[in-house]
């Protein structure tokens, strides 16, 4: 059984005042412990698809299913807690690196969850090659690459069921992008699935590749997968 499934998904919205329907009948499956890459031409609706899967963009039709449960049985907040979208543009809030990493635990949806302690946070940032970044450092002083990794780690730390990564390595140099790939691979174990949009050459972390083109999605083999 698929861990996460989208069936007949369609979204339609006005983009800068003009009606826009990037896709109208998209379906795919994600499996536990697997990373899938999503590729396709620019403007094909890859980011819209990820946002629709996280219920950050209203779908006009179709169903989303997580571990056998339909998305309509969850509140939007509960769904997003389980299906976590990380945007390409990293966003940090005013405060320290620690404040940013612990932001999810300040929200009502996680009020009963125990937040990670400093040791766990330090281990996490070390995994992302951020050893020299102190937890007390002002997040506003981080470089672009560091910001991207902090935003990514914030999502990783919440241990979601499904990670939707929207070109999160776009602002990173090759070495850092590789460390993020390794980190993603470590995180995506038996109880997590991941769908990534990437414009870099295949890094060997993905188990399969999906192509979104002309409103349709197809699985392609790794030989075809490219930029």
């Amino acid at each position, binding site marked *: 059984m698929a861990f996460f499934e989208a069936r007949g998904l369609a979204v339609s919205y006005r983009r800068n005042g003009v009606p826009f329907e990037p896709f109208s009948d998209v379906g795919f499956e994600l499996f536990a412990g697997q990373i899938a890459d999503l590729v396709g031409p620019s403007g094909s609706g890859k980011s819209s698809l990820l946002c629709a899967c996280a219920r*950050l963009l209203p779908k006009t039709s179709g169903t989303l299913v997580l571990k056998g449960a339909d998305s309509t049985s969850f509140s939007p907040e509960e769904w997003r807690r389980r299906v976590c979208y990380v945007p390409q543009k990293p966003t940090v809030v005013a405060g320290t690196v620690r404040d940013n990493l612990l932001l999810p635990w300040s929200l009502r949806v996680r009020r009963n969850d125990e937040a990670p302690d400093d040791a766990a946070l330090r281990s996490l940032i070390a995994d992302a090659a951020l050893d020299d970044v102190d937890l007390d450092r002002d997040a506003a002083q981080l470089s672009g690459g560091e910001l991207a990794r902090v935003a990514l780690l914030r999502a990783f730390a919440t241990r979601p069921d499904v990670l939707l990564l929207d070109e999160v390595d776009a602002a990173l140099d090759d070495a850092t992008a590789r460390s993020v790939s390794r980190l993603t691979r470590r995180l995506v174990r038996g109880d997590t699935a991941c769908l990534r949009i990437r414009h870099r050459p295949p890094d060997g972390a993905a188990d399969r590749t999906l192509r979104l083109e002309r409103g349709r999605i197809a699985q392609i083999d790794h030989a075809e997968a490219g930029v």
Partner: protein
Amino acid sequence: MSAGVIDIGYLELFGATAFMLVAAVVAGALRLRQTKAIVVSTVRCFLQLLAMGLLLVYLFKYQSWWLVCLVLVGMSLAATQIALGRVKGKALNIWPEVFGTIFLSSMIVAFIVVEAIVHASPWYDARVLVPISGMVLGSTLSATAVAIDRLFSGMDVRSDEIAAYLALGATPREAAFPSIRSAIGSGLTPALATMSAAGIVQIPGMMSGQVLAGADPMIAAKYQIVVLLMISAATTLAIVAICLTTYRKRFTSDACFLSPALRDE
């Protein structure tokens, strides 16, 4: 001390229109194309204030609770239209929220002042209730318009941050809260600044009016203090209420954020 009211003759009143020549000369010299606006504003100022004067004369003479309340509702409706006019272009459908906020926040505070501080008798004494309500309404409408503008502009500026909050599982209120807090802070600033400057930089309108009308300056000062405090309370109530009742307009029923790019404007 009671010097009595010094009346202004109609000749002097219409002669004062000459003051508007200053604005007309500036507008003409700088080709501001505002001649029509200057004429319309001047005529409106005359007509509206004279009409209000006539209305108050009638109200003082034949006052009844329902007539006074009708006038207050009418003033609140006008305040709502003016406040909404100041936030055009925001693609908002918030008439009920603005009316409810302006009417309730102003009337709650005005009635407390009339009943508990001025001890007006009867409670609907138009000579007390109407001018006090008018002063509060004027301030709440300005504060409401500023708060709406700051709230929705702030949310647009924070589009990426709001999206990030929602993606982590935040409720719309949690995602919008930094903008709500900022809008409330911005809305409070003018009232607090007026209170700080009162008596040093300016003699506020009500005190000036009472002194000109021959009242004891100490009584006028006490009234002015009460008015400034009540305006502060009413504007605070209005700002908090309008922010908490309207922020959801930028979210769908499924808690999706309507960023500027997604809105039909």
